[in-house]
């Protein structure tokens, strides 16, 4: 893998030898680690009981969609399998309501999160380790979305 073969550079459209390529190459290690982070967060070896790779991909696609990044959303959706319906931000699957409400709030109105929001997941029966995993997915996606948004601005500015 090179810095130009990662989700963020491919989705943003940064190409070797093209605009912003020298800056990306200067931070090649960071782009490679960013891809390693995606692999660890969305496709870990140990998933825990709740968050299968498909569910993680569906939530990633949902967060990207809510952020208005359909290219990134479709890329994650391709791995969502049977969980794909959860990627639709209007989806309100009965069994997943507390989790989806949490995902949407942490992704988009982080500042308003209170202890009640984490308590609501516990009340819905989610284990602490899974709450941490869920936050990790939302948090990583928030990073990925903003790296891509920034790279697109850098490309457009050339």
């Amino acid at each position, binding site marked *: 893998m090179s810095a130009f073969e990662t989700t963020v550079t491919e989705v943003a459209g940064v190409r070797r030898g093209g605009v*912003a390529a*020298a*800056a*990306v190459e*200067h*931070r090649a*290690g*960071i782009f490679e*680690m*960013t891809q*390693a*982070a995606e692999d*660890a*967060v969305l496709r*870990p*070896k*140990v998933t825990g009981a709740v968050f299968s790779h498909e569910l993680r991909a569906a939530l990633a696609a949902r967060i990207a969609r*809510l*952020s*208005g*990044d359909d290219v990134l959303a479709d890329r994650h959706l391709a791995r969502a399998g049977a969980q794909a319906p959860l990627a639709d931000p209007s989806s309100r699957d009965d069994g997943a309501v507390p989790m989806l409400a949490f995902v949407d709030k*942490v*992704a*988009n*109105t*982080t*500042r308003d*999160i209170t*202890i009640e*929001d*984490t*308590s609501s997941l*516990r009340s819905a029966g989610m284990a*602490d*380790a899974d*709450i*941490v*995993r869920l*936050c*990790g997915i*939302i*948090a*990583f996606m*928030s*990073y*990925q*979305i*903003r*790296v891509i*948004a*920034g*790279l697109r*601005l*850098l490309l*457009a*500015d050339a």
Partner: protein
Amino acid sequence: MSRVVHRFTRKVPKWRPRVVPVKLEEATEAQLDALKVTPSNTKVSDYVLTLAHDVQSLKVRSPLFNAILYDPGGMSRAERELGAIAASMVNRCVYCAAVHADRHAKLEKDTSVTDALFADGADAELGPRDRAIFDFARKLSEAPPAAGPEDMTALRDAGLSDEEILDLILSSALFGWANRLMHVLGDPVREEVGA
């Protein structure tokens, strides 16, 4: 007794988890490895012990965080901290804002920028370069990200190179990640002194 800190401050609070952290004595080998626990290093924060529930992420996250904030070249360390502060203010992560405002003040040997930001928020009076950096990072941190071509123009007018702008994108985006762990999984608290 302790109380939750709601106002931005440079005085770093204590972080109190909202979930039960991994207990060091019960940690698995993979967790101990990610925590970098060795016989000579057994001090691990509650925050890192909380993240140890998700050990594979923790292991890749620490080197990435360090690289974005500390790798040489590109944007100055203090300006990368400004990106972190802007994101933490948007997401209202009082703990992250405190840690990085404290670092900014120490690196710059000057508290005036973070004093102004914490007193007046986005309207704070800043020099033109800090203004362009803060505004770009603040807007990129909104959900959805709201930075636009005019913010990029302001960075160029302030003299930033591609390499510096990329470091700003990375440091502010990184705190889109960090804030959503720190602010969501715990509270910044201060011990009350006396009865």
